[in-house]
């Protein structure tokens, strides 16, 4: 009971924080496949927002529209006050330096070593830092943050799934983003490794005070990390609330997510 009280007040505090990400009435279809049919979302500063949905429900499509990797059919997407559909390439690139994106399958460049993977985002996004940044120091620091300092000269093919995810996380963190988007951070990992990744995500959140949007269909992950949740069902934001609120719901469509 006390715990619930705490969450509710925490949630109320969040609402007073500025909005960093907003999606209004997002539509996206592929031919006759209507994936998103008016999806809405708001992410506040410092918040951990979890979006849950069945696989194939359009979670990845939504997050890709958010960073301009896919063009939405209709809808307004605002990232830190910028409408991303109206930005030119250069301003979009500058904005993207403040957004970290952890891809579903890690998406490490498999022709490059771990070091080169981490250096890659620094090639272009150097404007964010001083002219003469110490690349090596940044790489070592980022790898240290995820506990993989030894892996610096390995190739991605030599890493386990969990290590790959950590390196991908380090690559996302190296630009010190203000917002991090996680696309199924625990998918394809065993429960123990998944838990380690979740703990790492929480650490990062407290250390850098980032705002996070976490896409998942892992209920445990959602319970541990979420301040607030959105259920993506039938292409819309079907239900919004805290984990406690949603898991207590009587709606069968919502219940389906929480029963084990």
């Amino acid at each position: 009971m006390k715990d619930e009280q705490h969450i509710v007040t925490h949630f109320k505090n969040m609402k007073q924080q500025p909005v960093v990400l907003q999606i209004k009435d997002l539509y996206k279809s592929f031919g006759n496949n209507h994936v998103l049919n008016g999806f809405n979302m708001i992410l506040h500063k410092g918040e951990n927002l979890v979006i849950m949905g069945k696989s194939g429900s359009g979670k990845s499509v939504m997050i890709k529209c958010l960073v301009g990797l896919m063009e939405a059919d209709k809808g307004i997407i605002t990232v830190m006050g910028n409408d991303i559909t109206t930005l030119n390439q250069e301003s979009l690139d500058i904005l993207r330096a403040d957004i970290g994106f952890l891809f579903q399958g890690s998406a490490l460049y498999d022709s490059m070593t771990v070091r080169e993977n981490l250096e890659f985002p620094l090639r272009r996004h150097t404007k964010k830092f001083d002219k003469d940044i110490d690349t090596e120091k940044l790489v070592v620091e980022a790898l240290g943050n995820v506990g993989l300092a030894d892996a610096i000269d390995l190739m991605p093919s030599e890493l386990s799934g969990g290590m790959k995810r950590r390196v991908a996380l380090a690559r996302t963190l190296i630009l010190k983003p203000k917002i991090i988007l996680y696309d199924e951070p625990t998918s394809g990992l065993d429960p123990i490794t998944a838990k380690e990744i979740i703990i790492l995500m929480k650490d990062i959140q407290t250390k850098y005070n980032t705002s996070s949007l976490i896409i998942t269909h892992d209920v445990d992950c959602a319970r541990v990390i979420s301040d607030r949740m959105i259920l993506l069902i039938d292409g819309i934001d079907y239900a919004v609330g805290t984990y406690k609120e949603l898991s207590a719901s009587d709606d069968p469509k919502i219940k389906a997510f929480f029963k084990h």
Partner: protein
Amino acid sequence: MSSSCIMLVLTNIKTQLKSFLLEIGELSYFTSRFFKEAFKRPFEIKELLRQCYLMGNRSLLLVGVTGFIIGLVLTLQTRPTLIEFGAVSWMPSMVGISIVREIGPIITALVCAGKIGSGIGAELGSMRVTEQIDAMEVSGTNPFKYLVVTRVLATTLMLPLLVIIGDAIALYGSFLVENLKGNVSFTLFFNQVFNSLEFGDIIPATIKSFFFGFAIGIVGCFKGYYCKKGTAGVGKAANTAVVFTSLLLFIIDFIAVFVTDIFYDL
């Protein structure tokens, strides 16, 4: 019965032709994008050089072996006929012209389509499927410039080089046969080869090779860049890259010969 069979074949051809033309359209759009992006800063020089090195390195042995065998076989097969006509002394000229003008470029290009073209298709395809291309884009690097422009430029620059090497090795193979069977000396053989070759043979062949290289790069990249999801998509990208390139190579060859012929008549 047989008429319905013919109808079936005709409709099949029609759909295939339609998808082929559609593909040509999309490829043209992709090519125009290449020319738009290729001249814009920043130039990925380091990656271009790396690609040139990798492509040359990976296909050199294959090009060498095929060239050598073609040279041997061509000479062995034509020898009896030339002897019959008492024209075996023309062998170096004949082999020289046919290899430099036609066989060298097309065989090297076909070998490279199989080796380099399918490699590019599979590599970019798997990068697309595993979201590496998306990851590049969000980290501020234009993936079209970094992956496509560098690879297409690399094949365009490297193919003529590989053709020259392939030609040289094929001629050497031909010389070995002549030397063993007809006791022709190295100097005599190559003197005759170079005497019979004119700029009119070498220049069109070299220009043609640039186009071959461009076709290999652009089709491989096109197929990989727009690869469909799933591992089946990657295999298909690699496979169709080779098939489509080979077809395109013959079309380019035909056009090249046609144009060269017009210039000869002038």
